[in-house]
């Protein structure tokens, strides 16, 4: 990186008061990423060798798997999303965020509540619903912390006296609003005052789809829009379509919930509504595909993206988004869903979304944001390379391997099986450690003299 680039980097450094909370969110996200990676490693070892650590109740497979999933979602993804959304809002709005302490309070509350909740899971205090497993007493703390960490900053930025509301901001506002509403409603009707019978499962599936598509997915879409435009230096292709994409995405996402319960004990008309909504999701997916890939499709955009660290991660992310979305839609049709439901195919598809799309975009965002927040360069280009290839081969390889092996497993008469994935998980861990070392040095080491080692 030349001296000019260095000055440019510093001049574009966000000076909107969000620097401290963004650093804190990224630092804790890294911690949770490492914890969930180690847990993932243990879980895949236990699946392959069930007797491994089976003498201690704390380390039963079921408990550790739940722990890993929660640490990954509420630890890694949530903290990283808080940081990325906060930074993008402040960078787009060019607004002095005065209430930094509120976001810091949110960070503290969220991570304390999460630590307590995960500790409780380890001790066996578990609810039976995915991503609602933490004890109910933790939920109010998570809810209030979210308001401080995400909703208030988003509202404050968008309600600034003047200025345009950009497409990334629509998605961030949507994400920041959907989580507390969906979380509160679901906690109330599934955990605190449970609805009767299978309605609980229906509400839970509605929660999962809202969380997956409208909170996590929307945040990653917002970051993709922002980073593609900023780093490629181009206007978003077919920008006028983005309004259609946004509203159809939000309109249909919640209705897709029953498509995740096909064949289950809920009325068939509700299941059919879910499948129809899932098919309708093709519309926003096409629009997002046109917006994302159209932006990169001319003037050597793809090769340019491949040579840019941030865009290389984002490119893998948006490709995963498109592919996983299409697979999700195709395999929500009844005949195909009958084969793959309950198999590792669905686990692979989830990995495709949460890792291939969301985590890769977050990694790309980190490579863009952290130098601007800290005013430093990435300490090691080799570690960046190691991170990219380990995450791509390990993370996407794991997703594809589970998808490919899970499909035939759904057709067999086997009632008990496992697919060995330890190699992929180990590779992912290597990438995460490389990323964590690079990031932590950047976040906590003293400033360095600029020299050309920032880019992979």
């Amino acid at each position, binding site marked *: 990186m030349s001296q000019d680039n260095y000055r440019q980097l510093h001049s574009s450094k966000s000076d909107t008061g969000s620097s401290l909370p963004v650093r804190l969110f990224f630092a804790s996200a890294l911690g949770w990423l490492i914890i969930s990676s180690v847990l993932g490693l243990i879980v895949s070892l*236990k*699946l392959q060798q*069930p*007797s491994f650590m*089976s*003498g201690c*109740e704390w380390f*039963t*497979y*079921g*408990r*550790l*798997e*739940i722990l890993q999933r929660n640490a990954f979602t509420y630890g890694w993804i949530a903290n990283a999303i808080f940081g990325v959304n906060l930074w993008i809002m402040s960078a787009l709005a060019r607004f002095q965020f005065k209430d930094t302490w509120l976001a810091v309070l949110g960070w503290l509350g969220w991570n304390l509540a999460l630590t307590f909740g995960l500790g409780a899971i380890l001790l*066996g205090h*578990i*609810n*039976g*619903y995915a991503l609602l497993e933490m004890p109910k007493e933790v939920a109010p703390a998570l809810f209030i912390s979210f308001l401080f960490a995400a909703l208030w900053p988003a509202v404050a930025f968008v309600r600034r006296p003047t200025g345009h*509301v950009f497409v990334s901001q*629509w998605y961030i*506002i*949507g994400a920041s609003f*959907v989580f507390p*509403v969906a979380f509160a409603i679901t906690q109330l009707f599934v955990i605190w005052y*449970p*609805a*009767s*019978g*299978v*309605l*609980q*499962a*229906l*509400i839970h599936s*509605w929660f999962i789809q809202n969380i997956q598509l409208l909170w996590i997915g929307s945040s990653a879409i917002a970051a993709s829009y922002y980073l593609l435009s900023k780093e490629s230096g181009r206007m978003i292709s077919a920008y006028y379509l983005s*309004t259609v994409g946004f*509203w159809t995405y*939000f*309109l249909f996402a*919640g*209705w897709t919930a*029953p498509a995740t319960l096909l*064949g*289950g*004990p*809920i*009325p068939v008309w*509700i299941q059919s509504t879910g499948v129809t909504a899932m098919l309708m999701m093709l519309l926003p997916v096409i629009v997002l595909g046109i917006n994302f890939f159209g932006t990169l499709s001319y003037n050597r955009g793809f090769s340019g993206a491949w040579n840019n660290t941030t865009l290389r991660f984002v490119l893998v992310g948006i490709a995963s988004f498109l592919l996983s979305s299409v697979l999700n839609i195709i395999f929500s049709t*009844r005949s195909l869903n*009958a*084969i793959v*439901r*309950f*198999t590792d195919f669905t686990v692979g598809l989830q990995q495709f979304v949460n890792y291939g799309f969301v985590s890769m975009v977050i990694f790309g965002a980190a490579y863009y944001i952290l130098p601007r927040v800290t005013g430093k360069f990435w300490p090691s280009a080799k570690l960046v390379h190691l991170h990219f290839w380990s995450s791509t081969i390990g993370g996407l390889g794991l997703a594809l391997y589970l998808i490919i092996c899970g499909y035939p497993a759904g057709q067999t*008469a086997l*009632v*008990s*099986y*496992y697919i060995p994935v330890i190699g992929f998980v180990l590779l992912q861990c290597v990438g995460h450690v490389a990323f964590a070392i690079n990031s932590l040095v950047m976040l906590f080491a003293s400033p360095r003299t600029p020299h050309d080692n920032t880019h992979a």
Partner: protein
Amino acid sequence: MKDFNLILAGIFFTLVASFGGLLISGEVQLGSLGRAPAEEGGPLYPLNEPGLAIQGRQVYLELGCVTCHTQQVRPAGQGNDIAKGFGPRPSVARDYILQSQLLLGNHRNGPDLANYGARAKSDEEIHGHLRAPAAGSTMPAYNFLYVVDKNGKTQPTERAQALVAYLKSLRIDYNSPEAKLKQ
């Protein structure tokens, strides 16, 4: 789109629409489901869970069994659950009306347990499986649920007994108005 309030109102509408459309209409259809006799004049199903089974449900939750085992049998046209012997008929909404917290599950590393109580031959068989799963099974041994008494014999703890009582209570081998058993 520049109006923040309009965006927020639109997002709120999308949430309300899906929640109302799916869940409130679901409540209208399913909210008043009650128990029903399997045959005219017979006892009402689903049966109330015995007290020990309720404790066992808690053990099932604590051990995270729901991670690997589902409790729902899909109809014959939607998967091969019945062909695999998971149950004699598909699960229906009425089967779950007494459950305070559903444990439907969403992934299977092991078999579905909706009708496990009817499949298991004896308490000893279930205890044996929990202590030492069959070779090739992906299930770990739950030895910590058992103690060795002064005579050197392995005895189930109260938690193991409760868990077995719960597993035995899982049955859908009765007629439901929505899903009859094949004669």
